[in-house]
């Protein structure tokens, strides 16, 4: 019997991470888009909002690597700036999910079986029962379209995900003997949750966070595709696709590149998530 522990290895996590092919590839892909997004703050090949109708619908060329759109804007520049919006929306909405969901889940777990637990979990189920995209559309109908409201709409649906995850993981931990030891040491539920539970579910949260991040990118793309995400002139991948749709027979490049950007970013994040899960999960690690 070899000694196994849940979350032991703190020493060489980074080294371990890059030994995972999934993680490395995912990191590379995601990293590329994050770099592009950051770079777009200071430099893009062209001004992403500069309209030049005369140069509209040009295919990829030396001047415009990924071609131009129906207003003659440079698609590469738009994708770079769009990366910024997408990543920001997804990141903040995951943040909302974690910030609200994790404490709720921990609270429910600490009071397992109580009314609080019941209410939190039923409310979670209820949110899950709502058709997410429809509610997002309703939310933007109420507050108007825009990146901030897209964040709120996506964030709301991240809350139950993290609440459930945190509760489930915390419940297992609450039966661990070190939690009993902490309780014997007189520590209250809040303290135990913060000191013992939270750090030990961090791995799970990171993995889920990565996955929700990628889902957030997809959700943002869907919302801005129906016109509810970031508003023009700020480019967004979803709206670029919506614009491209009417021209798909004329200028397929307008649809291909932003779509590929979405796929690669989401793929990168998912691969990273998978890699992280393998690294964090000692069961899998042993078998490798």
């Amino acid at each position, binding site marked *: *019997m*070899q*000694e*196994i*522990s*849940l*979350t*032991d*290895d*703190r020493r060489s996590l980074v080294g371990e991470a890059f030994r995972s092919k999934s993680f490395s590839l995912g990191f590379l892909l995601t990293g590329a888009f994050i770099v592009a997004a950051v770079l777009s703050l200071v430099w893009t090949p062209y001004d992403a909002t500069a309209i030049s109708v005369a140069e509209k619908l040009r295919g990829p060329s030396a001047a415009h690597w990924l071609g131009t759109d129906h207003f003659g804007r440079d698609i590469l520049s738009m994708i770079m700036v769009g990366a910024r919006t997408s990543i920001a929306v997804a990141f903040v909405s995951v943040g909302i999910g974690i910030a609200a969901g994790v404490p709720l889940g921990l609270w429910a777990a600490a009071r397992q079986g109580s009314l609080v637990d019941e209410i939190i979990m039923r409310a979670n189920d209820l949110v899950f029962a709502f058709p997410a995209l429809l509610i997002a559309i309703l939310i933007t109908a109420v507050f108007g379209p825009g990146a901030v409201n897209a964040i709120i709409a996506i964030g709301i649906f991240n809350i139950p995900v993290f609440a459930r995850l945190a509760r489930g993981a915390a419940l297992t931990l609450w039966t*661990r*003997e*070190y939690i*009993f*030891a*902490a*309780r*014997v*040491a*007189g*520590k209250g539920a809040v303290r135990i949750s913060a*000191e*013992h539970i939270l*750090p*030990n579910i961090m791995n799970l949260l990171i993995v889920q966070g990565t996955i929700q991040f990628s889902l957030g990118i997809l959700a943002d793309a869907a919302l801005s595709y129906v016109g509810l995400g970031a508003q023009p002139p700020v480019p967004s991948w979803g709206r670029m696709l919506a614009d491209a749709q009417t021209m798909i027979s004329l200028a397929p490049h307008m649809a291909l590149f932003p779509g590929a950007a979405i796929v690669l970013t989401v793929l990168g994040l998912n691969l990273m998530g998978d890699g992280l899960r393998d690294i964090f999960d000692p069961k899998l690690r042993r078998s490798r």
Partner: protein
Amino acid sequence: MTLLQIDNLSLSILGLNILSSVRFEVDRGEVVGVIGESGSGKSMTAMSVMQLLPHGTEVSGSIRLDGEELLSKSEREMCRVRGSDVGMVFQEPMTALNPVKTIGDQVAETVMIHKGVRRAEALAIARETLNRVGLPEERFPLTRYPHELSGGQRQRVVIAMAIALRPKLLIADEPTTALDVTTQAQILALLKKLVDEDGMGLILITHDLAVVADIADRIVIMKSGEVVEAGPAVQLFRAMQHPYSKALMAATGHHPVRKPPHVALDAVPVLEVSSVVREYALPRKTLFARPGAFRAVNNVSFKIHKGENVGLVGESGCGKSTLTRAILALEATQSGEIRVGGELVTTKSGASLAARRKMQVVFQDPFGSFNPRHKVRRLVTEPFYLMGRDAPTGAALEARIAESLENVGLSARDADKYIHEFSGGQRQRVAIARALITHPSLIVLDEAVSALDVSIRAQILDLLADLSDRLDLSYLFISHDLSVVRAITDRVMVMKAGQIVETGETEVVFSNPQHDYTRQLIAATPDLEAALKRREIAAA
């Protein structure tokens, strides 16, 4: 010709050596006990016979069953051997059965796979086999699902599956380790009966010498993937050659040397439990019926005096864990009082810090009782939280850490390590260090040595005995293992169905049990020395 001949068996997984040159044999009608601690390779030896090995395993040597070489058989051929010529029983009856199939189907499957008979016929054989293993039709129809059976009953089903086709060889890998002692005795008796009836060979793998002492014809002792000693049971037990075997033998019946306790009967008891009741609500039978209640702890009262070590024994489900949690104020009680050093552990405003300060706990699992993200320093000082502002700081704190680590045989330098850097036994020492750090008068030891290998267990028991003598500690020692309780306690309480059925001085209770249940328990507990004596008398 011997039934099973293992020769020069070596095995490695992904380059890591697991077995080297293992060699032993099993005859028809013979029980061979394979004994070893964790990592000795005893289970892997069994799996080699079954040829159920993980990916990346390399095997060399020879395993011959009835003269046929198993290692050279193809997977398809091995499928015909498994279940038909060789049956196997595993340690965990709770998970070894498919939860979504009836026991009848699962036993019948063995028959159908190998004999190609129709289902009805296979079910008839299954019925017969279940009768043989002590699951009569009236109480155990074939349509039962595993979850409707107790652990012991499930193990009987697993055995039935393994012997349905009357194999030549049965391998039982720790078949009783997960079971209560009384059940263990029954299962061992059943295995012995089946061996005698069918004349099959039995390999009984266990970590516990005492378990095999009664029924094994021959013993194989393994360590680190090697056979260190083998021979006929009684001779081998009486004249061990290898130092490891000797150490194992010594550890098995180990009784730490203890000074006679000086019990202060007149002082305030360190623990006083009076008329404690703990009930759980049962699910409603119908919507409007009042939910019933299950009394896990039923009106329990006892005291522990200063300097006294008290044992609490009972089988799973007897309520000892619930009682423990109540004493630790981790669980509310419906009525009764629990006082530690005169202070109520639970007051109206919740658990009392003052009471808790005088009491610490050591849990069973050396792997689960520490937050893996903290260093030992932080782990062992956690109880100081109870002292609030009175907790020592700075140099005083360092001194206390060093003191408690050194008390348990570790060094002060270990404070800066993470818990994964320690072995199981060392972790249990850290757990004891954590319990000692507030200088409590009572330590609750909840199955504190149950998860440890025998040799480690002996060391920890010595440590506990030593600490109790030196620091004038009282223990409440909770365990299902009577031999351990006997070794370390002054007084013992026997618990059954939520009540304490017998209590008294340990030696008195063990040598002259009054209650039927106590007698049953003691009779069922494997006792190496007693078993050997019985066999010597029988042989003579």
